[in-house]
């Protein structure tokens, strides 16, 4: 009988055991998941619901020496999307496209950012226009995974005036991300792209903060700001102090009009501090922030005056007669000449060496002169002979010792090193052992031509050593403790005499006489360097004022500027402005344009036999 009570009781017992066993298996499963593996699942649950939204730190504000603002931060808006998958992002972008205008470029950019950093919000507009933000805020409810953030945006109040040194910021590029320097950076972050912004990026960028927003399974933001987990507040970078004098910087930019190409560096010779640095023509770094507009980029790149090329730190030019001070220092240091030394052959407009004839810039000749007098008149014939006395080996060794083959150490990225021979071998390699002669080579080098091109920065550094005691600190835009290094060893009297000679250059009898300003006591050296067979010469002037105790060194180089005195006119105005000396050119509202030969100087007419030009 199948339903005997004993059978029933047995079946019930087995059934009960089965129930208890099955439920125990279930319960142990929960024990394993909830107690033993709790940590793991708790973590996964947090990862599920929290998304990190980076909060960019304001970059350090850059000040000049008088606490004028060079670079600051303005509020801007970024628009990003939180998407779990690429297809979700695409769908969301398509939806977004019905509300606002999205170019294919915007979409591609967003997808690229997503693939690189899928866990960060995907930036759609790094710098959204206010009307776009307004439209999106209106449709906020339709786009729950949209994040509109107020972020600091770099702004340079003086724009183009500071383009030579400030650089700009923009989104970090793919290749930068792959480099060692930026290994801690993330896609979508802003990074300094040039100038100070690049040089001091590590100091200026601050510490990014983090906001944790809670999202649901579809990536919709459910709780913003601090509800899920408190924000990590971004730490702004400390302010950055510089040696720049913005009043002077603005003045330099205004004097150095847009039609001119070239550069200016003004230094404080005591500290090496850069008071002003300009490269003309410049560009507006504000237009570079957050992506350069294509038309502006094309315009800058096709401009024959190369606005993106820094003439003060990247351009190398033959120094011309401004090099004659280097000759003088080498001769004095080596005891080859003193200030009274006269050369065997007086200047009668030219100098015969071997079977070549080297002309002086003034065919009338300068007669017999001592070193100071030769500097005053920039007499080529004197320096041809001085060069021969120094000799090529000592000329090259002396130049290297003075650091004329190295970067000046100016704190800007991408400074070019001057082109300067490393030894006699250089010429053997270049021209073959019989392809050149030391004599004519040193004659050429003595007047700053030939195998020698210098940057404005390295020449400014050399002259600032003359303006002090033979030592100079590397030119520095950032306000740092100067590290002075000895450039040459001359007695204070010798240096004083060199400066007196430079003062005579800017006297009625000197080559830059037209730039003399009462009370300014400007001293300096002109240079008119050959640029090519058909193009006008480059104009150099490196000066200091007041010449007996220089407080400013001004180096000016005007590409194709014609004659050195034209650069001297710029330098005299800059130095006068800095020292608060009234300058005649500023008194007349429409001062004579640079290039008007109304100061009595005589333009050199280069006569280059055997490829040689003499320059004042």
């Amino acid at each position, binding site marked *: *009988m199948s339903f005997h009570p004993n059978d029933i009781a047995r*079946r019930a017992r087995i*059934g*009960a055991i089965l*129930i208890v066993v099955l*439920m125990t*298996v279930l319960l142990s499963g929960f024990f394993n998941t909830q*107690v033993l*593996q709790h940590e793991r699942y708790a973590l996964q649950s947090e990862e*599920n619901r929290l998304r990190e939204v980076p909060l960019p730190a304001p970059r350090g504000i850059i000040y000049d020496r008088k606490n004028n603002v060079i670079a600051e931060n303005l509020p801007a808006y970024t628009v990003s999307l939180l998407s779990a998958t690429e297809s979700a992002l695409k769908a969301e972008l398509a939806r977004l496209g019905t509300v606002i205008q999205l170019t294919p470029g915007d979409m591609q950019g967003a997808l690229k950012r997503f693939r690189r950093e899928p866990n960060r919000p995907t930036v759609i507009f790094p710098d959204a226009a206010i009307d776009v933000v307004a439209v999106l805020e209106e449709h906020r409810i339709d786009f729950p995974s949209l994040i509109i953030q107020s972020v600091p945006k770099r702004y340079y109040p003086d724009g183009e005036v500071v383009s030579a040194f400030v650089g700009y910021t923009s989104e970090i590029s793919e290749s930068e991300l792959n480099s060692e320097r930026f290994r801690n950076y993330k896609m979508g972050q802003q990074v300094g792209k040039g100038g100070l912004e690049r040089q001091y990026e590590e100091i200026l960028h601050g510490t990014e903060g983090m906001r944790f927003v809670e999202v649901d399974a579809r990536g919709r933001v459910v709780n913003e700001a601090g509800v899920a987990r408190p924000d990590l507040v971004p730490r702004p970078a400390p302010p950055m102090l510089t040696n720049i004098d913005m009043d002077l910087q603005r003045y330099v930019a205004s004097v150095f009009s847009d039609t001119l190409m070239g550069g200016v560096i003004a230094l404080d010779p005591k500290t090496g501090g850069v008071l002003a640095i300009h490269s003309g023509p410049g560009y507006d770094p504000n237009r570079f922030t957050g992506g350069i507009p294509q038309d502006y980029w094309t315009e800058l790149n096709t401009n024959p005056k190369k606005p993106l090329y820094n003439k003060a730190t990247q351009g190398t030019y033959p120094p011309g007669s401004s090099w004659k001070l280097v000759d003088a220092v080498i001769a004095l240091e080596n005891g080859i000449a003193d200030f009274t030394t006269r050369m065997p052959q007086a200047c009668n407009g030219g100098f015969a060496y071997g079977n070549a004839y080297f002309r002086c810039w003034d065919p009338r000749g300068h007669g017999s002169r001592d070193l100071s007098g030769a500097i005053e008149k920039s007499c080529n014939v004197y320096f041809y002979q001085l060069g021969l006395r120094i000799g090529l080996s000592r000329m090259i060794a002396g130049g290297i010792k003075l650091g004329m083959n190295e970067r000046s150490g100016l704190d800007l990225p991408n400074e070019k090193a001057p082109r300067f021979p490393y030894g006699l071998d250089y010429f053997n390699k270049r021209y073959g052992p019989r392809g050149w002669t030391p004599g004519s080579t040193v004659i050429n080098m003595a007047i700053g031509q030939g195998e020698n091109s210098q940057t404005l920065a390295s020449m400014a550094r050399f002259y600032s050593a003359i303006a002090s005691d033979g030592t100079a600190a590397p030119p520095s835009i950032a306000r740092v403790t100067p590290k002075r290094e000895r450039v040459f060893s001359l007695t204070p009297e010798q240096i004083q005499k060199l400066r007196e000679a430079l003062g005579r250059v800017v006297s009625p009898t000197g080559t830059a006489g037209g730039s003399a300003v009462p009370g300014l006591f400007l001293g300096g050296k002109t240079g008119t360097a050959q640029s090519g067979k058909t193009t006008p010469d480059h104009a150099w002037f490196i000066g200091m004022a007041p010449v007996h105790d220089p407080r400013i060194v001004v180096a000016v180089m005007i590409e194709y500027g014609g004659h050195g005195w034209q650069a001297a006119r710029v330098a005299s105005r800059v130095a006068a402005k800095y020292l608060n000396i009234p300058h005649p050119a500023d008194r007349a509202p429409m001062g004579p344009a640079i290039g008007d030969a109304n100061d009595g100087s005589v333009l050199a007419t280069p006569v280059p036999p055997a490829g040689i030009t003499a320059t004042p």
Partner: protein
Amino acid sequence: MARRIVADYPLVLTALALSLLGSAMVYSAGRTDVPTYVAGLYKPQIVWVILGLLTAYGVSRTSVRLIQWLTVPAYLLSLILLALTLVIGTGAGTAAGTKSWLAIGGVRIGQPAELAKVTVVLMLAQVLAARRESPSSLLDLWKPAIIVAVPWLMIMAQPDLGSGIAFIGIFFAMLYWSGVAWPLLLLLASPAISLVLSFSTGLWGAWFLVLLALVLYYRPFLVEGIVLMLANVATGVVAPVLWEKLKPYQQNRLRVFIDPSFDPKASGYQVIQSKISIGSGGLFGKGFTEGTQKRLAFLPAQHTDFIFAVLGEELGFIGVMFTLTLLTVLLLRATKIAARANDAFGGLVAFGLMASWLVHVIVNVGMTLNLMPITGIPLPFFSYGGSFMLATWLAVGILLRISGEGRGRAGARVN
């Protein structure tokens, strides 16, 4: 009336407690940060619980005899409803692609499968109780097999895999209760086992040897034995064909059961999120209505199939232990009622209803931990759904009556 029926308090109180907890979880399931239609579902759920209580009370006032008398009409009615559902049924909610709902003029009346679970139990009990001997051969089982097979096939055609599994559980449990020997049950189940094992030739071969030994030991009729072996060979052969016939989502569900990371974004998603919900609940849970997985919609079907994951996340291991204990008490109580039943019919009905709950609990709760494949089976007293709640309390009512009429002490006093 010769006897005064006194309520089976352990059964009623346990069922009430589970219903209260279940309604609370349906309420919590609706508390999401982005509100959905689930937010208001706790209200109808409470109405269904009240209707269920009334049903149970009504049924408990009905004698077992009357219930037995009503069995055949009720069974036929549920067959008609199932047939109707196949013709005019619609899908709904998390099972939108199926035809599980009986709808008239767009108004969903209910899920006939839930009623059928009860009527099939009654009908099986009727047939099995009528026998003087336990079924001792496969041929003896043709009647019960047909009673289950007809509604089962209609339900599988909807398709509603979860209910289908429940029917099979009920069938085997009731055969067991009626005294069918273990080996016979095993032989009966053998084609299904072949179906599963045929995916590995080695395993299938081994199973075949076991089966052969069983057949020799049990010595069924010759024809029976041959048919059985042929059936095993046949299912083994058609298994790959059947696999091909499965819809991709069904295939994926089975694959995901083996390895949830196989398809983490789609089929595996539910299981992964369910485990994260439960695991992140820890010992004490995140607090009632506070579960982030549920709140932020990471947890799918949080008010129906995966409601136990909400419980696990919000009430923690303590809450899970409490709930599973309540369920165990209920199941053991139902088993005891079966053992004390006045006659074979009552005992079979009670055990069948218990088995139906057991299958639902094991498969549903096991599914939330990936111990069982996802089959879309609800959890009694918890998952949202009117027909299911009514059917569950209908079962409680029947159990109450059987308990009241039962022998021995169960709170029932014999006059």
